[in-house]
């Protein structure tokens, strides 16, 4: 569980921007918050946060580092725009729901149906506004690149 | 004030190097101010051969040609010892490297023997006696040191040596 306005400098320090491999990036996620938080994120598959998660710089490592650490879903009261966009484009599921965040506690089990907009955790089942179909489509295929039919197919390439 | 002293004769496996091995080759500049020295171990001799450092084992002896350690006054001798090298023999050392080796207590000896050995040979180096004994039994003379330099090397470098001197003068 994280607070409000968690920025991308806290999520992923700039000096490791040259690290391209997701699992290697995972070692630096939340480095600014100290080793205790870093180990917690490695065990979790869901990260919850308050308002404006991921504000600040557009570094994509903040998202891919979480994926490298095994996180599959991020729930927040609200997302910073570029973090939200990077998450969808890389296949990291996101739910924007203040109510759901308030209902969660660290260590909870959570089951979600993104399309239906339904989440069940220890304190019961909650509804949330599902993402628009266009974005769900990208998420379902695992991100922007995966949504392109196979490698090498690019609009610019003359068949 | 007891000081652990080190003997100044060594038996070890040889690695031969050529002339003018400079300290940029031995210890890349980016490590001098790096706090995390761990990555230095693999990057030793990167400029010469990136795979060389991995071959070094504790107690190995490097034997080189002329002007070993020329260039910057960075602590190349201490870095080589960290990689397991117990002694360096060269036809000649650069001035800053020789001083750096003595000051950091790394036994080195000037002796023209590089053309008489091959990688993997076992040799014995007696720094105090300034001799190198080869596997074939021949003994070659090197450049002897004055006694106070041997004292510095024996006690492990200029720091322990100065502590001893300061204690003596204070006592």
């Amino acid at each position, binding site marked *: 569980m994280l607070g409000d306005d968690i920025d991308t400098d806290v999520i992923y320090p700039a*000096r490791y921007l040259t690290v391209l491999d997701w699992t290697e990036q995972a070692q630096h996620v939340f480095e600014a918050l100290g080793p205790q938080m870093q180990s917690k994120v490695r065990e979790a598959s869901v990260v919850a946060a308050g308002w404006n998660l991921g504000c600040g710089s557009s570094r994509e490592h903040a998202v891919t580092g979480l994926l490298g650490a095994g996180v599959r879903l991020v729930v927040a009261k609200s997302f910073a725009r570029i973090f939200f966009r990077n998450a969808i484009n890389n296949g990291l599921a996101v739910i924007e729901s203040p109510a759901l965040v308030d209902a969660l506690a660290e260590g909870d089990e959570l089951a979600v149906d993104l399309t239906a907009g339904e989440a069940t955790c220890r304190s019961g089942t909650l509804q949330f506004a599902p993402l628009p179909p266009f974005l769900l489509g990208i998420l379902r295929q695992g991100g922007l690149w995966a949504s392109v039919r196979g490698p090498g197919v690019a609009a610019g390439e003359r068949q | 004030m007891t000081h652990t002293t080190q003997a100044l004769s060594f038996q070890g496996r040889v690695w031969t190097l050529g002339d*003018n091995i*400079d*300290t*940029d*080759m031995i210890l*890349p*500049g*980016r490590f*001098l*101010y*790096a*706090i*995390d020295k761990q990555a230095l171990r693999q990057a030793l001799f*990167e*400029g*010469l051969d*990136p795979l060389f450092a991995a071959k070094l084992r504790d107690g190995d002896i490097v034997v080189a040609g*002329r*002007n070993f350690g*020329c*260039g*910057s*006054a*960075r*602590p190349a001798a201490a870095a080589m010892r960290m990689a397991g090298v117990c002694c360096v023999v060269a036809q*000649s050392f*650069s*001035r*800053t490297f020789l*001083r*750096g080796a*003595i*000051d*950091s207590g790394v036994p080195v000896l000037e002796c023209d023997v590089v053309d008489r050995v091959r990688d993997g040979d076992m040799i014995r180096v007696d720094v105090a006696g300034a001799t190198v004994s080869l596997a074939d039994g021949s003994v070659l003379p090197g450049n002897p040191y*004055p006694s*106070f*330099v041997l004292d510095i090397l024996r006690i492990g*470098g*200029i*720091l322990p*040596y*100065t*502590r001893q001197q*300061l204690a003596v003068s204070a006592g």
Partner: protein
Amino acid sequence: MGKTIAEKILARHANCPAVAPGDYVTADVDMVVLSEGLSLVLEDFRSLGRGRVFDPERLIVSPCQTTPSKDLSAAFHSLRTRQFVQEQGIRNYFEIGRGGIMHLVTAENGFALPGEILVGSDSHTCTNGALGALCVSLGLGFAPTLATGQTWFKVPHTARVVVEGAARPWVGAKDVMLHLLAEKGSDGFLYQSIEFYGSFVRDAPMSERFVLCNMAVEAGAKTGIVPPDEKTLAYLHGRAKRPFEVVTSDPDADFISEVLIDVAALEPLVALPDNPANGVPISQVGHVAIDQVFIGSCSNGRIEDLRICASILEGRQVHPRVRVVLMPGSHSVYTQAAREGLLATFAAAGVSVGPAGCGACAGFNVGVLGDGERAISTANRNFKGRMGPPSSQVYLANPAVAAASAVAGHILSPADL
């Protein structure tokens, strides 16, 4: 039997009547010149149990190798240096924006004086031998000297290098040293002190004398010295921090060797990768395309060097495929360059001017090369991996050749521009 400058200075500082080459002596030092490298030996210094440095007035500290701190490690060492300076009450501290390369700051502020012994960690401490001092690098073993104000020396042999004649256009002290290195090799003067004589030296401005002594270490020498003359005294007038006594070699002093160089015969030289002793006349270099030009360092980062570069870059543009990284040797050089309009010329030509300091010379700071890239540099070393990864290559040359090559995109003499 006459004595050389090194022998006289060492004898006086070891208070014994005379010393001979090969003797080992313990001598007092007059000045310790340091950068943020001071921080690299703090644990060593503390381990000596002496809380105080021998004399705070005899230390000069000017951070210049990794400044403005380029990463966390650099910031760590710069901070520890500042804290130690405050703790010890060291007044001769030159923060960035006031200092620059330690060797230039030492000379500019009158801390290097004839007849004195000046030591430091950096291998180019010998630069200030141009002021008649015995300047010797101690590497990172200088912690004991911080505590005791003394250190051990092996008395060196002394060689005479006589440089006669008038240099052709675009030829200078850098080329004299590249020639000397090509002739004698990088261990030509191993352990020796070099004394520079001859009409070229007599007529040369101080900046050229600093270059001669700066690169003595590349030839294996312990140090280089230019015997003080009226030009030295004029330079020191109004600068010298203490009274000093000129020391020169006796006419019958025993020199181990003498080398004569006729400057008039020299054309600009370029040292090919990966050794400063690989110098060849520029006419034999052939077509070598370059990616970066570095102008600066304690060899050629003075105002005189920047003036030469500006005269060539005036009204011209840097080649589109080339980037020029220029770091003035000290902040006073930077400010002087601004006053003289040199920075305006550099900016117009497309040169990137960085803050005073060692800059790109040794890969510690910025201006690092990429894989397989080639640079021409006015610094003093081009060993493999010096300015970047082992696959990158560095050519050494004087400032005029560096500036001309920046315009041409390949190594070129200004005479052919």
